[in-house]
Each structure stands twice: as C-alpha cells, then as structure tokens.
C-alpha cells in the first residue's frame, strides 16, 4: 500500500503531508527532513527511485520534481514503481486542471482543496481513482456543496451566544 504522500518545496518546506498509517507528528517531521536530505543530494536528471527504509526494509520512495516542488510517494512492495509514477502524473494533472497551471503558491494557499483532491485519488493507502477528469467532477460537486446556502446559519447563533453573555 501507499504509506505516505508528501509535497515539499526545494527549500525543504512541507506543502502537503499525508500519512496513511498513524505517525506522531514529530516522526512525520523527522521523515520529511530525512527525505529532503536524500533528495537534495541527488543530481538532476537521475532516476526517480530511492530505496528508503523509513517504514521497513521493503519500502520504496518515488519522487518527481515539478518546478520548485518535490512530489514524493512512499510505498511498499505491493505497488509498482512505474505505476506510482503514473499516479503522480494523474495527481499533478488534476491539480493543474483545478488551479489552471498550478504553481507552488496554489498549493500553499489551498491546503484544504489539495487534501480533498488527494482523498479522491487515494484512500486508506489504496488508489481509488486514476482518472483526473473523474476527480475534477467530484471536486466540482464538493465545491458546490460547500457553497450550499443552508450552511449559513451562523448569524443568529453567534448573536444568541453574544446575548447570553
């Protein structure tokens, strides 16, 4: 299964962190630091795979550089390396469709949306969608739901809270 999806920029700042089995936040940060250390030391135009023992002897790490960002997927031996590379392509394509020519800032300022997109593609470490157009469709649905007017019921509530004081 997929153990983690991480996006960091070339300064090592995390932009998206998602672990599929529980990791304490300190451990997460440590993993990210280690991964960044490894990726930094790699030259450009080399292979995208790194043997990685963060989660045991069989885990592997695939990364891909897009402009200033490293997209990283950590997974074990029930996944195929090249298929995961395809998956990353799907993820980035979807981001591109959603943000129109995605850049680092889009990911910085759309924390929630990026998570929503990722959750449509991977759930519980399993890939559930490989078609970016399907993901975009689901995302449009969700955006519509979020703007649903009946969610604006907060005014009376807050006033009552205020009056009660």
């Amino acid at each position, binding site marked *: *299964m997929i153990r983690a999806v991480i996006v960091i920029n070339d300064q090592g*700042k*995390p*932009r998206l*962190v*998602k672990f599929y089995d*529980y990791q*304490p*936040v*300190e451990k*997460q*940060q440590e993993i990210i630091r280690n991964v960044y250390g490894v990726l930094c030391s*790699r*030259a450009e135009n*080399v*292979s*995208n*795979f790194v*043997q990685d023992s963060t989660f045991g002897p069989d885990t592997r790490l695939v990364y891909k550089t897009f402009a200033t960002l490293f997209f990283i997927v950590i997974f074990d*031996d*029930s996944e*195929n*390396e*090249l*298929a995961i*590379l*395809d998956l990353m392509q799907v993820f980035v394509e979807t981001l591109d469709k959603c943000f129109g020519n995605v850049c680092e800032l889009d990911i*910085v*300022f759309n*924390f*929630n949306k990026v*998570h*929503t997109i990722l*959750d*449509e593609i991977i*759930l*519980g*470490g*399993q*890939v*559930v*969608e*490989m078609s970016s157009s*399907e993901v975009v469709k*689901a995302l449009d*649905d*969700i955006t519509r*739901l*979020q703007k*649903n007017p*009946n*969610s604006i*019921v*907060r005014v009376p*509530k*807050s006033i*009552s*809270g*205020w009056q009660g*004081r």
Partner: protein
Amino acid sequence: MSGGGGPSLMDSLFQRTLDDLIKGIRLHLPGAAQSSFISKSLDEIRREIKSTDSQTKATALQKLTYLHSLHGIDMSWAAFHAVELTSSPSFLHKKTGYLAASLSFRPSMDVLLLLTNQLRKDLSSTNQHEVSLALECLSVICTPDFARDLTPDIFTLLSGKNFIRKKAIACLLMVFSQYPDAVRVCFKRLVDNLESADNAQTLAATVGVFCELASKEPRSYLPLAPEFYRILVDSRNNWVLIKVLKIFAHLAKLEPRLAKKVVEPICDHMKRSEAKSLVFECVRAIVSSFYEFEFAVKLAVAKIREFLLDSDLNLRYLGLQGLLLVAPNHLWAVLENKEVVIKSLSDVDRNIKLEALRLVMSMVSDDNVVEICRVLIGYALKSDPEFCNEILRSMLSTCSRNVYEIVIDFDWYVSLLAEMARIPHCQNGEEIEFQLIDIGMRVKDVRPELVRAGRDLLIDPALLGNPFIHRILSAAAWVSGEYVKFSRNPFEIMEALLQPRTNLLPPSIRSVYIHSTFKVLSFCLHSFLLPGKGVNSSRSNFVDIEPGFTYSESEQEFTETDHATSSSGFNKRDTFTQEAVVNMLTLVITSLTPLAESHDVEIQERVRNVLGLAQLAQQEISCNHDQKEKMVDKVDLKTSIIIRLINDALSEDFGPVSLSAQERVPVPNGLVLEENLSKLDSICADVQLSISESFSLVKPILLPTDGDSVSNQQNEEDSETSPAESMSLLAEHRKRHGLFYLPSDHNKNASSSFPPANDPNQRDNDVEDLVKLTDESLVLKRKPGSNRPRPVVVKLDEGERLPITVKKTDENDDLISGAVRDVLLGNEASLHSSNPSGRRKGESHSKDKVENFETGNSSKRRSKHRNHGKYVEDKEENSEKSKKKSGGRHKARRRADGGIDVAVQKQVIPDFLL
C-alpha cells in the same frame, strides 16, 4: 470584553482566515519571528475554537489543522472540537472536522468513542460526499471498536454506487486488520466485487485489497485463484493486472500446478503490453516466482535487457533490479549482461551504481573473487568517497560471508585488507579491524603475512594522520604484538609502535599500541636471554585452550612451519645482540616515560607495566655488559625468570569464542539467578543518589586538572605536538577535500591513479578498461594456478551467526486468514461463533484444505491425459470451467445460506488447478 479568554464577537468578526494565517507566516522570517507569530496565532485559535459560532470554530480548526500538518504543532487538545464539527449540518464544517480528525487523531484517543455515532450516521448518509468523508476518516483512524461497530454499515456500502463502493472496499483493508471478524461478514461481497467488470476502478480497489491480504498470508486465497485467473486473462486495465500479477506471484509459490497454468498468460501480457509498468511487473513475477519455466525466464531476461539499454534512467534502474532478482536462480542472465552492469558502475545516478555494485557482488564466487576485487578496488579509488565506501563495504561483507567461505588465498585477502586501509576515503576501519583480528585468530597459516601487512601499516607515519584508519592501525598493532614471533625484525616493529606520531591516536588505541610494545619487548628479551628455549620449546608444552576445541589435524604440521619461519625470519641470535637489545630498552624507556603520568588510566597502567619490565631488564643487562663471560648465566637472572613466566602467559593463543559459549558454562551451585530483585530498588535508590551527588561535586574539580593535563602534555612534547597536530589537521583537510590536493609522496601508489573527478574522457577510458578487465575475469572457469590448498579456517562446532528469529506472522493476519478460510469453505457454523473457538475452527479448516489439495492431486493425475497439451482446447475448457465455476460459486453462496456441502466445494477448487 469576555473574561478568561473566552471567545467574543470581536473574535468572530475580525477573525483571521486560513489565508491570513498563511500570509502572516510567509511574511515572518523563519526562526524566532515566525515561531512567535505562530504562537500568537495559536493563542487566538485557542480562544476562537471555543466559540459557539460554528463558522468561527471551523476557521479556527482549519488554521490549527494547517499548523499541525505543516508546522508540527500539537493539536491533540482540540480533538473534541474536531469531533463536534463533524456533526455540523454544514458540509464545509463537517469536512473541516473530518480533515482535522484524519490528520491528527491517534488510535489511543478517548475522544474517538464520541465519533462512532457520527461516523455511522455519515456512512448511511444519502449524500455520497458525506459518506466519502466518513470512509476517508475511518480508513486512517480505524480502531477495533470502530471496526466492530461499523462493519454492518460498510457491508451495506459494498454493493452501493460505484463512487462509494470503491472507497468502501479500500477502507475494508483497515477494518479487517483491526477487527478480523469483519471478514466473516464482508468477505463474500468483496469476492463478488471481483466480477464488477463494469467499473474498472471498483475492480482495481478490490484486487488491491486482495493483493494486500495475499501478501501477508497467501495460502488462504488459493481458492480464489479461478477468479484472479479470469481477471488476468480478460482485463485490459494495467492497474488491475499489476495487482493480479502480484497476487499470482504470491500464490504460485504455494501451488506449482497453478504456476504452470498462469505462466502462459503472463508471458502473453509481457509480449503484448506497451505499458512499461505492466511489463516490469510481469518480469518481476516471472523471475521471482516462475523461475522454473525456462522459456518465461528467457523472455523476461530479454525484456530486462531492453530496460537496461533504454535511455530512461528509471527503466535502467528497474532493469538492474530485475537482474538482481534473477541472479540467485539464473546467474547466466547476469553474466550475459555483464558489460552493461559494469558500465553502470560509473553511471551518474547513485541508485544505478549501487544496484550495479550489488549485481557485481552477486557474480562473485571463489574462482573470480580475486579478479573482481581487483577491479573493484581500482574502481573504488576513482569514485566519490561515498560510493567508494559502499564498494569497500560490499567487498568486506561478501568476502567475509559464512566465515570467509569464498576466500581461498588468505595471504591475498590480508593484503587486500591492507590495501583498503590505504584508500584515502576509506571509512570502514571498524570492519577491517574486526576482520584482521578475526582472520588472525581463525587462520593460523596466514599469520606471517598478517604480521607483514601489519608492519607495513604501522611503519607508515602518514597513516597516523587519518583518524578513519586508526581502528585498522589498532588491529595492526595488536596483530604485530600477538604474533611477533613471525616478524622479520621485531625491533623495527618496536620503533613503529613507539614513533612520535602515535600521539595522534586516541587513548583507547594508543593503549593497544603500548600493550603490543609490551608483547614485543617480552618476546625480544626472551629471545635474547633464553635463546636455547626458543619459541618452539615454549610452544610445545602449550596446551590448547578449551577441551573439545580442536584446531585441526594440521597442528603438528603447523609447529614445523612455525619453526621454519622463525629460524629463517630473523637470523636467530645474530639479531638479538646485546647492543640491539640495550638500544631497544633505551628507546622504550625514553619514549614511554613521559606517558607514565598520562591522565588516561589505560595508557598509564600499561605504560607502567612496560616500564617496569624494561627498567628491570636494563639494570641487569647493562650490569652484565662488561663481563661477557657471565653471559652464560643469563638464564638465572631475575629478569629471565620473569620473562619466562610472562612469555608463557603470552604465548597462549586466543581462539574465537562461540556466541553460545556463555550458555555452556554450568551455573555454580548455590547461585540463584532467578531470584526476585525487588529489594534492589531500595538499594539502588541510595546508590543513584550518591552517584548524582558525586557528579556534581567532582566535575568542577576534574575540569581544571583536565585542562592542566592538556597543557602539561603540550609542554612536555612541545617540539613534537604542534607540527604533528598541524599535520593531522592538514591530513583531515586533505581527506575532506582530497580532490584539490596533488598526490602526496606517502600514499603514492594509492593516489597516482587518482584522476580529476569530472573528467569525462578519463572516465570513459576507465570504463573501457574495466569492461575489458572484467571480460577476462568474470568468466566462470577454474583458475589454473589455484592448486594451492585452502588453509584451515577455525570454525566453532555450532553456527556462529546470530540465531535467526523465526518470523512470526501477525496474529491479526492469522485471524484474518482463519476467517477467510471459514468463509471460503462455507462453514456456516463458525460464522457466529465466538472468537477463540472460531480460531480453532479456522485451524482445522486449514487441515481440511490440505486434504483438498491431495484429492486435487489425484484427480489431476487422472485427467492429465484428457487435455493433452492442446492450447486451444485448453482455452475452451477454461471458459467452460469458469462458467462452471461461477455456477459453483452460486452454489457455494446458497450453501452458505443453507446447509454445508463440503464435498462439492472441494471439487471447485482443485478442478481449476488441473
């Protein structure tokens, strides 16, 4: 406005949004400014999150989740607020709550209990996106309680809309692992989903789950082989096929008949597919699980070769990996591609270099180890420090495997180790140290060579400047002291051990040097004072260490060669002239006296031992200096007596110690080892107190003396230290920035072949050379000159390797597979049985299944002649069979509902395996 930090309307109106927070963080420079901004924001969040207004609360939680996820801020205190928001009627707020929960909850939180009802409600929501939120959250934070309580809800979703179904299936994996009994409820629906050809994604999720399950305990999923086979043949979805291939790779190892059946379609995919991912998966499956099928392996190796020759580095890397998988069973495949492998050693990509190195090591055998190591050493000299050490490490580990199994010529191996020590970047000192000593103890025949190599290392003053090889020098010193009798010139070794630059060594290693001095000294004095009672006489009455510990039959032979070397080595009495010995004593005394005041206990103690002996000998020998006639009485001198005693003690050999040696020591009577030590606590409490007191008292006193010692030492050795120290600094610098230095005189042989790092032409030439070299050397043939018998390597009677811990499968996996078997074999009775008895039933079923296979076997034999290898016919039969199978499954389902008919079920499985 509101006391106690409670939320206020102002907070709600002028609340910072997540965007504001992010902008704020970006405005502040990383470091103090940023962290103070974050802690200020946290204070705000703490206030806002208590708001009764859910919008305010949601925004606060959003900000907190962001800080938690990307800045590592603890948010466990806000767990309750997250739970609260999941029940919000607003989808946005609900989503915020769930995101916070899935990113921050840990399995042990109490607050999880509060979430159960909400999850149930959302799982049965009519809004599919609410259901997905709940599923996503559950897939991350699932606990046994959640899994138990929510299994029915998930079960319902397994036959719902595809959008939800695929997610529910993916979520099942977590549910099963937390609560194996869920398998009994959900497994049939999961199996049904293997037929959902209408939606590729649902099928992909289903095979994904089976792939995970089968990787843990494949045996339980053998009965599903027909379903997987159908998918393998019919599906055109690469993602699905990859997972099915992985499942078959697991299953085929268990059932050779299945392997035979499946290998054809896999080869078809391998030939046909354009997708590299699928092709590679086929290759991997073939070489790891179907390696007995020659034609398939040939095809796979051809594909690997395509990968190796591709311009894409990823494919080249995977090609090497594939080759590595083939290597154990089909070494020819590696040899066939050896030029590519060797060339890859100089690839720009570190990964590729490492894989290539592993492949080269996989080709090593006792015939070619010498050549391969020569090639690699040459290569190590030319590569960057990191990879150089990687090469050295793999050589060391390969050569020492199974007690130096592949090494025949130990003289060569010792000189190889010495050569490694001289490689400028070598950082494997510890391992080399271990092996030098280990070989010394195990292989008697190699000791003269070992001493020679040790001498060469010790005598080179340049090596002392490199802290990475201090450990090797320590081994060299030990070896030269322990086996000094093989030395051509012990005085030379003594000088090497006492050379001024040894002050660059750390105290622990220096004390090894000094102790070796002691051994050399006592040996020299012995040879001088008691020439008649030479080494051999003292050896002859030397008894082996342990009873039951035999060296070998060559013991007798050995003492003879021993005699030969010692007599030829140094021209006996001529070497040990009075003058030489007196000079040596003076040298020892002058160079060690300053160290008698050393602040390192080890050094001080050893130095005093040596000095005591040296001074005693000096007195008596110089007394006798004038009266030559009295020399005959040397034997009666006090020194002689002591020396004889010491020498007897020292000449006892060290042998390797078995790991289990301690276990074999009988426990003395009256020693109670398993007594309860609870009383110890009260005693220890006092002890610890006093220790901590002494710490605080002693430290301030110790520190100044320490400082004194340094300055003292510096004063004493002023003339020596400062240049030496600068030399060591220089050496360190040289080590770090080796590229910018011209080759120095002392490691000339090492550095002369050291090319400028980034000279492409040079590199290409090197590669050519290497390829040429290996072309000759990697041929698998007996070397003509290898007639020399392998020396005896001492091994202990039992295995010396660490005891291998038996890999236990997770208990949960056991439970899961038990449940799976129950379901697959349609045992209704255990469906509702309680846990422990259910498990026992699972076990009995596994026995049943073994019987199944046996009957299958016989039926196979019976029907073998029926489908006599005609492929077309076979295919038809297949489709027929799959029809039959689906019929069988329906029956099975009916059976599960109604009575049990194991007899029919039994036939369903083996039939396919024909």
